[in-house]
C-alpha cells in the first residue's frame, strides 16, 4: 500500500462514519416507536395519563412534528449528550450515565490489563511451545473461555473465592483505590476470561505465523539471541492482528462488562442499561445505546489509525514490495 492509498483508505473509513452513526442513531431513536402501547405510554411511565401531562409530553418531545423532524431535533440534543430525562427517576440521562461510567471504566480497564497480560503471555508461550502439552493446555483453556459466558464464570469464581475460600467480598465495589481493586478483582477476572480467549487465539496464530517467516530464520542464522528473535522480530509482527481486532475486543468487553455488572450487582452503565431496558425507560436506554455506539465507532477509527502507525512501511510512505 502506498502512502496515497493509505490516505484514501483512511478517508473512506472516515467518510463511512457519519453513515454508520446515522443508521445506528435512527435505529436507537426508533426504539421509542417500537415500545408497546405507543410513544406516549412509553414516555408517561408511571405518571397518570391526564390530558395536561400528555400535552406536556407531546410538546417536550415534539410529537406533533413529522417523524424525521422529531429525529433531527432528538439528534441535535443527542450530539450535545442531552438524551432527556429518565422516566423512572426523572433525573437527566447524562447524570445516570456519568454515575455508572466510573465503575464500568474501572472494571473494563482492570479486566483489559489482566486479559492482555495473560492473554498475550499465554499466546506467545503456546506458539513457542507449539504442539506440546503446554500448547494444548492453553488452547483447551481458550476453548473453555470462549464457551463460558461471563456470568457463568462470575458465579463459579464467586463460589470458589468468596463463598468457599472467603478471599474476596461477595458484594459491593469498595471505597478508595486499594479497596476497590480488591472488591473488583473477581468481576474483572470474570470479564478478563471472556476477552482472553480471543487475545490468546490471535497472539498464538500471529506468533506461529511470524516464527515461520524467513527473516526469523535468518536472524537465528546470524546468531541473534533467541530472546531477541522472539521479542524484536516475531512478537512485534504478531502484535498487528491484536491491534486490528481492537474493535471486536471492545464489543466483547462491553458485552462482558454488562453481564459481569449484573452478576456482581455493580452499579455500572451495563447494569443500568439492563435495568432501564426491563423497566422500558426508553430515554436512558437510548442514551446508553448511543454512548456504546459512539465508543465503538471511535475505537474502530483509532484501530484504523493504529493499523497505519504500527506498519512502518506505511508510516514512512514507502510502498511494500
Amino acid at each position, binding site marked *: 500500500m502506498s502512502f496515497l492509498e493509505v490516505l484514501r483508505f483512511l478517508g473512506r473509513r472516515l467518510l463511512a462514519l457519519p453513515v454508520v452513526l446515522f443508521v445506528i442513531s435512527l435505529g436507537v431513536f426508533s426504539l421509542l416507536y417500537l*415500545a408497546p402501547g405507543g410513544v406516549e405510554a412509553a414516555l408517561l411511565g408511571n405518571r397518570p395519563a391526564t390530558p395536561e401531562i400528555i400535552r406536556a409530553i407531546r410538546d417536550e418531545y415534539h410529537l406533533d412534528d413529522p417523524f424525521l423532524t422529531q429525529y433531527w431535533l432528538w439528534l441535535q440534543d443527542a450530539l450535545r449528550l442531552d438524551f432527556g430525562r429518565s422516566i423512572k427517576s426523572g433525573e437527566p440521562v447524562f447524570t445516570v450515565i456519568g454515575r455508572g461510567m466510573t465503575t464500568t471504566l474501572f472494571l473494563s480497564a482492570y479486566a483489559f490489563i489482566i486479559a492482555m497480560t495473560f492473554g498475550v503471555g499465554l499466546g506467545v508461550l503456546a506458539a513457542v511451545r507449539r504442539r506440546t502439552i503446554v500448547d494444548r493446555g492453553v488452547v483447551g483453556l481458550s476453548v473453555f473461555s470462549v464457551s463460558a459466558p461471563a456470568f457463568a464464570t462470575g458465579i463459579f469464581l464467586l463460589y470458589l473465592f468468596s463463598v468457599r475460600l472467603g478471599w474476596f467480598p461477595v458484594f459491593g465495589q469498595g471505597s478508595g483505590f486499594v479497596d476497590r481493586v480488591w472488591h473488583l478483582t473477581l468481576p474483572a477476572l470474570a470479564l478478563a476470561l471472556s476477552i482472553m480467549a480471543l487475545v490468546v487465539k490471535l497472539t498464538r496464530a500471529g506468533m506461529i505465523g511470524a516464527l515461520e517467516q524467513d527473516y526469523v530464520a535468518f536472524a537465528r542464522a546470524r546468531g541473534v539471541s533467541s530472546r531477541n528473535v522472539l521479542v524484536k522480530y516475531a512478537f512485534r509482527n504478531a502484535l498487528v492482528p491484536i491491534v486490528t481486532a481492537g474493535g471486536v475486543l471492545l464489543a466483547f468487553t*462491553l458485552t462482558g462488562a454488562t453481564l459481569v455488572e449484573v452478576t456482581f450487582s455493580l452499579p455500572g452503565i451495563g447494569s443500568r442499561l*439492563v435495568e432501564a*431496558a*426491563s423497566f422500558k425507560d426508553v430515554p436512558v436506554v437510548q442514551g446508553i445505546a448511543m454512548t456504546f455506539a459512539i465508543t465503538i465507532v471511535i475505537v474502530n477509527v483509532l484501530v484504523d489509525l493504529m493499523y497505519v502507525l504500527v506498519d512502518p512501511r506505511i508510516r514512512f510512505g514507502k510502498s511494500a514490495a
Partner: protein
Amino acid sequence: MIELAVEKRDRLHEARRRRRMPVLIACCVALMIAVLACAAIGPLLAPYDPNAPDLFTSVAPPSSEHWLGTDTLGRDVLSQVIVGARTAVVGPVLIALGALAIGGSLGLLSGYLGGATDWAIMRWVDLMLALPGLLVAIVVVGVLGGGYLVAVALLIVLTAPIDTRVVRAATLEQRPLPYVEAATTLGLNRRKIMVRHIWPNVMPVVVANSFLNFALGLVTLAGLSFLGLGVGPSTPDWGRMLSENRELLAENAWAALAPGIMLVLTAASMNLMGDRLYEWLSDRGRAR
C-alpha cells in the same frame, strides 16, 4: 534431508494427534446426545415435576431424594436442569438454521454476482458485525418485549452476517474452478449454478460454522434469560436458574453451579465439534 525428516516427524505427529482427538470429540458427541435427549423427552426423564414447589424442603443441599438439592421454592434442581435443556437446544438450533438460510443465500449472491450486490451486502455485514449482539438484544427485547421468540428472531438476523462472510469467501474460492466454467458454458442460468453446483461444495464449511453459531446462540440466549429478558416465568432455563439461584451459593451451591456447568459444557462441546469439523474439512480440501 533434514527438512524431509522434520516434515516426516511433523506428519507422524499430526497423524498421532488426529487419532487422539476423537476421544475428546466422542465425549462431546455423547454429551450432545444426552442434552438432545433431555430436550426431546426431558419431562419423562426428570424425577420430579420441575415446577412443583415443595416449601418443606426449600433450599436443601443434595440428598438421595434430590440429587442436586432444591431451590428457594423447593423445586428439584436436577429436574429443572434436565427440562431446561429444551430452551438450551431449541433456540440455538433455530438461530443456527435461520442464519444458515439467510447467510447462505446472501453469501452466494455476494460471492457469485460480485459488483454492486457484493458491495451492498458486505457493507451490511460490516455494520452488523460491529454491533455487540447481546447488547442489541438487551435493548430491543427489553423495549419491545416478547422474550424468547423475539430474541431468537433477532439473533438470527445478528448471526446471519457471520455465515454470509463464510459462504462468500467459500464461493469466491469455487467461482474460478473448472466445473463452474463448464456449467456456465452449458448455458445454465445463474440461479441454477449457484444453488445446484456451488452450494453443495460450499455447504460443508457453513455447516461447521453452524456448530459455532449454535454455541454463540446458546450463550447469548442464556445471557438474556440471566438478565430476565428471556424465557417466561414457568419455563425452566439454565440462564434463569443461574440468576435466580445466585443467592443460594452458600446454602445449596449446586442450584447455580449445575446449570452453569451444563451451559459451559454444551457450548464447549459445540465449539470443539465445530472447530474439529473445520480442521477436517480444510485438511480434506488440501488433500484434493
